[in-house]
């Protein structure tokens, strides 16, 4: 391969500047759409994962093997002290929160509702979840609060209660027997933006919950949060081994929220569809442009063949041209991506609290750039352009020079 072949290809690209510009603009916009869609989906995924894990779930949880399957309060973690010892010794954990979970009846003068009552250690919980942040009215729980409760905003309005009002909690102890019933004062009202939380959740101090459940020191759930977000899957492996399914079981957020996980996988599929669709658009543009550009030059190609150029060499000359076109398009596309994607990365798109896969999109979603987007997609574009240009080139090479050299 000689330099002149490359020169020939590149100069040919710049021959019809307007057509080249329009074509690379079209291809570049295709590339930009792909990268922005990818970055946006990435941003959305990150947000949803972050939101789900930060709001309440944690990155993973430990339960009695049967607790989540049956939802029965009797399945408490076998030896919570041992589990807690392991957790508190692990520097990889950012935090953990021990919880009891039971269903209860909450009643005010105005009515009663079935809720999920969670016993928490306020300090531990504030590291793990956002309850403290989302408690916008009144105050968050403190260690020594004996008869104080946090409830959701919607529950409060259903019960027509406010800060400082009294409610009665009724629940059945783990061992059976008489119902426990206690009076609580509303200390804080939280607003998660998710109806499951705002309608059906309430939090009290862990010790009080254990007392009402009639089991001192019992725990249903440890929610965990790790420091290193990049290597989560490795940590999941490690914790799977650390807490094998004998009595207690570690599960990561994907296992805990399979619906969200499949929703996120679905976005990958939609991304693949988008890529395929854009590929067709880009492909059609390349074939069309190249075919026009080549066909109007068939005389030239006839001359090249006539003076002894092998078809293979002519093929290379034309391929160089389409590669040059692809590279130009990538440059234009990257510039467009940095401009428009940068705006989306900076300002984001606000969904105004719409819920997707039961995750409320409270904050704007920002596009996320990654190096991969600027390697894989452009590379794919070049390979795709080369493959797609085979067709018009083959059509041109098929014309015998004695035909293409006819002037009329």
């Amino acid at each position, binding site marked *: 391969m000689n330099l002149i072949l490359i020169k*020939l290809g590149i100069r040919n690209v710049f021959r019809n500047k307007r057509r080249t510009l329009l074509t690379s603009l079209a291809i570049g916009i295709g590339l930009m759409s792909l990268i922005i869609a990818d970055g946006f989906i990435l941003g959305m995924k990150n947000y949803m994962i972050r939101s789900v894990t930060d709001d309440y779930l944690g990155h993973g949880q430990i339960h009695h093997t049967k607790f989540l399957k049956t939802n029965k309060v009797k399945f408490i973690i076998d030896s919570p002290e041992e589990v807690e010892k392991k957790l508190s010794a692990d520097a990889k954990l950012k935090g953990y929160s021990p919880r009891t979970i039971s269903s209860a009846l909450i009643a005010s003068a105005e009515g009663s509702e079935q809720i999920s009552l969670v016993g928490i250690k306020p300090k531990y919980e504030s590291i793990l979840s956002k309850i403290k942040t989302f408690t916008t009215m009144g105050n968050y729980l403190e260690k020594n609060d004996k008869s104080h409760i946090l409830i959701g905003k919607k529950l409060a309005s259903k019960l027509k209660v406010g800060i400082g009002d009294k409610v009665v909690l009724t629940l059945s102890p783990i061992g059976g027997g008489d119902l426990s019933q206690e009076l609580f004062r509303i200390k804080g009202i939280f607003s998660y933006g998710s109806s499951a939380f705002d309608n059906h959740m309430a939090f009290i101090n862990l010790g009080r919950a254990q007392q009402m459940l009639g089991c001192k020191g019992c725990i249903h759930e440890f929610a965990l949060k790790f420091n290193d977000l990049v290597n989560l899957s490795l940590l999941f492996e490690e914790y799977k081994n650390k807490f094998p399914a004998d009595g207690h079981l570690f599960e990561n957020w994907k296992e805990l929220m399979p619906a969200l996980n499949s929703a996120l996988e679905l976005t990958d599929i939609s991304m693949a569809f988008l890529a395929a669709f854009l590929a067709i658009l880009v492909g059609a543009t390349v074939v069309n442009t190249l075919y026009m550009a080549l066909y109007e030059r068939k005389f030239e190609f006839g*001359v090249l063949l006539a003076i*002894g150029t*092998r078809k293979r*060499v002519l093929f290379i000359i034309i391929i160089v041209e389409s590669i040059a076109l692809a590279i130009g398009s990538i440059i234009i596309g990257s510039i467009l991506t940095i401009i428009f994607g940068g705006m989306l990365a900076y300002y984001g798109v606000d969904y105004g609290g719409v819920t997707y896969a039961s995750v409320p999109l409270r904050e704007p979603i920002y596009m996320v750039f990654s190096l991969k987007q600027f390697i894989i997609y452009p590379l794919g574009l070049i390979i795709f352009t080369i493959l797609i240009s085979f067709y018009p080139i083959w059509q041109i090479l098929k014309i*015998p020079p004695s035909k293409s*050299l006819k002037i009329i």
Partner: protein
Amino acid sequence: MENIFECKKVSKNFGKTKQVLVHALKSVDLEIKKGEFTAIIGPSGSGKTTLLNIMSGLDNPTHGKVLLKGNDITKMDGNELSDFRRDHIGFVFQSYNLLPVLTAEENIEYILIIQGVPEKERKERVQKALIEVGLKGLGKKFPNQLSGGQQQRVAIARALVGKPDIILADEPTANLDSVNGRALLDMMLKLNETLGVTFVFSTHDPLIMNEAKRLITLHDGKIVEDKIQ
């Protein structure tokens, strides 16, 4: 003198069905000797282009053989034919001979590149060819910066530079005015006389054909006259 080119009973039919079958060449026998300066003349449609195309292997005869120094080119495959044209034939067409995106020098050098000539030798031979066609100093110009006559000279330089056995030119002066056409022909004649380059070209122009040393007249696909003048 040795024969470099021989056409033996060459016929060419165009069209597939009997009704539209065109007999462009009818059993043409032709021998070209080294150093000849031959014009092919004849009315439009008489088969001049077809004959030149077949001699160069651009087209296959329906019947007959084409021999270059004894080798039958009608039996060659695609790559062999490409290499044959590259190494043995120089080409000059009526117009648009040159690649518009390459300079005159680059257009000429192209042949040497595909022949695999090393760079230093290429540069020297290109400059020499430019001088031989009277375009010294114009090598850096692009075709659209040259006149029609200059462009045809570049085409001849390109045909010449690869040291072919023969240069075939299909109406090389047809797009030039009579002064420039005449000048081009004089230059070809000079190359023929000083360097011994063998030329076969077709023409309509009586002034041009009178300069030829050998004149072949085609009519209806047949050679009706072949004279040395």
